[in-house]
């Protein structure tokens, strides 16, 4: 046991004090936070523009429509001057005017008396410049007002007519549960896998390439202790890397989705369940990737061999989008990888039963034990260890 601890300590020292390894482990998490936050703020900026001043010219504006341009928080300057159409178009092109609205004479009266199919309907022409943000915003707003008005003319009934009324009674915490159970299983497993991929591929294949594995193998330390020492240290490091990515994602999600997240639905039990699943998942991935690394002759080969496994995990992760929640069949929680995705769906949607959670954790521990046993056998196999 002392030797195993020594191996763990040494591997962790390498992972956590070599700035190159640290950089590759923790940079993805930081990048996720920065990129998603930037994306989110761009999206919210696009949806909630800061421009509040507009310059508009209107011809023959009906009295009934005058309220359209009285928007709280906006300062819409309506030009008194009667522009010629061509003159107004030039001003819009030069971005000196945002909108030129030209109604037909007696537009409102003609509209009221107009029967469908009885000739030309009254018209309104709106000129704008989509390359000018202020022009695009006011154009979009004004046409929306007209559309809404038009739909009320032949109105028989309304659905949710009051735009200020909140008809959706979802609570923030329910929304959080829904969003997380939808996106998190795939993202989390992908992070856990990619967090393990780099260091595990390098672990044994890298030692073979550098010639340092034999130095370790001629010590009297048991092969099983060497294997366990390697897997535990790789697991701890992968988990640290994955947790940084996970935190980066969680912190950036409110900005990305524009929703205020309320995690109060997730109690201590949920957090421990999640931790249990994350630990077994990381150890399972670490064991499998270390087996691949041991078979491989070089780090490059190990990374190539790991790609199909990554594709498989992502594909299984996508099964989340094809179902409306975690599966109920207990036997499915024994299937490797699939049980992890289903358990994560269940955890995030607060619907995982204790039995399914335990089935998932213990079946994965069983698979990890088989993996460790296989690795120990492989470490004793000269054809595999010295296959340079």
């Amino acid at each position: 046991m002392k030797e195993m601890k020594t191996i763990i300590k040494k591997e962790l020292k390498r992972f956590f004090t070599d700035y190159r390894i640290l950089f590759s482990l923790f940079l993805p998490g930081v990048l996720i936070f920065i990129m998603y936050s930037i994306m989110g703020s761009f999206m919210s900026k696009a949806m909630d523009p800061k421009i509040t001043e507009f310059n508009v010219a209107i011809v023959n504006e009906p009295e009934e429509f005058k309220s359209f341009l009285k928007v709280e928080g906006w300062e819409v300057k309506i030009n008194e001057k009667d522009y010629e159409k061509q003159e107004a178009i030039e001003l819009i092109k030069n971005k000196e005017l945002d909108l030129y609205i030209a109604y037909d004479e007696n537009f409102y009266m003609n509209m009221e008396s107009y029967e469908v199919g009885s000739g030309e309907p009254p018209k309104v022409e709106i000129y704008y410049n989509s390359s000018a943000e202020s022009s695009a915003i006011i154009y979009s707003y004004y046409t929306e007002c007209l559309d809404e008005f038009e739909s009320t003319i032949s109105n028989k009934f309304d659905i949710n007519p009051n735009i200020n009324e909140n008809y959706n009674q979802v609570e923030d915490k329910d929304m959080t549960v829904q969003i997380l159970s939808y996106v998190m299983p795939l993202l989390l497993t992908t992070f856990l896998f990619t967090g393990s991929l780099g260091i595990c591929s390098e672990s044994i294949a890298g030692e073979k390439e550098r010639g340092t594995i034999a130095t370790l193998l001629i010590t009297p330390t048991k092969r099983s202790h060497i294997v366990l020492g390697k897997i535990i240290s790789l697991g701890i490091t992968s988990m640290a890397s994955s947790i940084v990515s996970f935190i980066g994602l969680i912190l950036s999600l409110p900005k990305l989705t524009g929703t205020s997240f309320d995690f109060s639905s997730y109690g201590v039990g949920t957090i421990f369940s999640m931790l249990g699943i994350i630990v077994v998942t990381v150890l399972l991935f670490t064991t499998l990737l270390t087996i691949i690394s041991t078979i491989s002759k070089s780090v490059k080969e190990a990374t190539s061999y790991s790609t199909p496994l990554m594709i498989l995990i992502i594909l299984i992760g996508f099964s989340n989008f094809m179902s409306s929640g975690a599966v109920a069949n207990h036997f499915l929680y024994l299937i490797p990888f699939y049980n992890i995705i289903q358990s994560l769906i269940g955890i995030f949607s607060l619907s995982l039963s204790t039995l399914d959670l335990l089935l998932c954790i213990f079946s994965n521990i069983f698979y990890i034990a088989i993996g460790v046993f296989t690795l120990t056998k492989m470490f004793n196999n000269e054809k595999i260890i010295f296959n340079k």
Partner: protein
Amino acid sequence: MEVLLEVKDLKKTFKLTKRQQKLNCSKEKYKVAVNGLSFNAYKGEIYGLLGPNGAGKTTTLRIISTLIKSDEGDAYINGISVKNNPGEVRKMIGFLTSELKLEDFFTPNYLFDYFATLHKMTKEEIEKRKTELFERFGIEKFKEVKICDLSTGMKQKVSIVISIIHNPDIIIFDEPTNGLDVITAKTVTDFLFELKKEGKTVILSTHIFSLVEKLCDRVGIIIEGRMIKDDLLSNLTKDKSLEDVFFEIYKQEVGE
């Protein structure tokens, strides 16, 4: 004289990959690397294994050092079977080959503690042995310098120190002076003499005749996996040089 290492009828065959068959210009699927090899090494002597490249020297040393297993036959160190009890054997041997490398990221001081712990040494034993070996090899000054920043000679010295960290009874050196400058090579040969004086048994594989003539008490000549001659150096050479003796034997065996 006390036999420390007894090698009995070792046989090792490797399956060749298609690439290796191509490189060998042969359709043979198997290569017999070691073929019924036997020899004894006695306490306090330096035994030299001499042979051309591909003769089976490294394979023999790898079998003795428990890194690979023989197909047939066995080796015994202090009467303990390498095949059946590799864990015990590892406590009694030190093995150094140019293939064994140290991790660049760590310092000699850290690696010494690491490997000493893996050899189940106590803290006191580690400190005592470290002071002794670091002083003997002039590593003290560089003990906190990362391996990657050390000169080739200093790296080799650290490798030697790591290989004998647990004060083994038998030390196996596979081409120990390969790629070393003359000064470091001299340090290594001087050290081998010192080991002999201390009563350690050294198994040395090389194809440098002068090194064998200078260091070894007993010589085994291996050609194509077979032990062709195994005798005291003085009996083998008599009034001839080792190089002449070797090529005479080689001509008889290979016919070139």
